């Protein structure tokens, strides 16, 4: 393959960049609100809003296929799944003791610092000479009209050039469904059959409260 042509590029503060910045700011605010909130219903709703905001951000980056997936999966199905999972556990997050806050804060700080450090080596936003836009990406864009002749290059890459990877992704989805069926479907091959507990549910709840580790038990199937 020929050496990629170096295109001229200079950074500028256009209105699109300002839109991106405001969307990213909203994402940060949304994330902080999710950390502060104790009511799990609100957290589930905020995670849906977070997905919708990131979908808008992806549209602004011209990645419509990714935005579509984020809106459908993140804002649609996973919110419903989180809510139906939440219906099986408590409505409110139990507060964490002060001692147990330090280690997660330390880990998050280290990881965040590492991510910020990694962005120093990243190419400038929108740089046409960035590795993602040069080598294999450029080859796909140049060759897909002759090789595959599908107008949406994303579909061509997803289903043909990288068909083997997409088979793996489909298997991941299948495995996730299978695991949910095995864990929650009461071992029935027909799946989702209503579980008939030998004891009435009130008695079991009372037992769990008596043990004092209700949250541990209810978190088990997740």
């Amino acid at each position, binding site marked *: 393959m020929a050496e990629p042509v170096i295109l001229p590029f200079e950074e500028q503060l256009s209105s699109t960049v300002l839109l991106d910045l405001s969307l990213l700011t909203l994402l940060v605010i949304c994330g902080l609100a999710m950390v502060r909130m104790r009511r799990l219903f609100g957290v589930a709703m905020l995670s849906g809003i977070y997905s919708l905001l990131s979908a808008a951000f992806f549209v602004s980056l011209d990645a419509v296929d990714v935005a579509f997936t984020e809106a459908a999966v993140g804002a649609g*199905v996973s919110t419903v799944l989180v809510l139906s999972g939440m*219906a099986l556990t408590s409505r409110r997050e139990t507060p964490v003791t002060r001692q147990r806050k330090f280690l997660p804060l330390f880990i998050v700080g280290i990881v965040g610092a590492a991510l910020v450090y990694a962005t120093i080596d990243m190419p400038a936003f929108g740089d046409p000479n960035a590795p993602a836009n040069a080598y294999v990406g450029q080859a796909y864009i140049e060759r897909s009209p002759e090789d595959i002749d599908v107008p949406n290059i994303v579909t061509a890459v997803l289903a043909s050039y990288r068909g083997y990877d997409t088979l793996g992704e*489909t298997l991941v989805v299948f495995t996730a469904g299978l695991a949910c069926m095995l864990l929650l479907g009461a071992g029935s091959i*027909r799946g989702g059959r209503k579980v008939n507990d030998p004891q009435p549910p009130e008695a079991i709840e009372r037992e769990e409260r008596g043990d004092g580790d209700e949250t541990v038990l209810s978190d088990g199937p997740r």
Partner: protein
Amino acid sequence: MGMGHVILRVTIKVLFAPIVLFALYVQFHGDYGPGGGFQAGVIMAVAFVLHALGFGLQATKKAIPPRILTAGMALGVLIYAGTGVLTLLLGANFLDYDVIDPDSHHNAGQHIGILVVEFGVGLAVASTMLQIFYVFAGREAEPSDDAW
């Protein structure tokens, strides 16, 4: 379920068919616009999740039994992998669609291959999403209106 859900149910009745139609559009228009099997599968599943939220889980399970979904999950993956095995049997590499229609000058083999494979993805994703919703929602009595 009393009359309290009547607005929800009417809205869902109006929205159900357009959502399914949109899922089919996204599925089969994925070659030309944004979309494809993953997105279409999720949208299709969302239509039935909405139905379950408005009309109750048992009504949806009567319309689409979990048994069918289990078969759909496996069938979707089998369609995808089977396309790969078919190209192997025709003498090319795994998932090398050109061999499906080797004499075409318009890459018909690629087009057929991509359509079939995307259909497999859509079937697997739609069945899996709805199945996961079934097993989560089927664990307990549905939450009452003031549960939140």
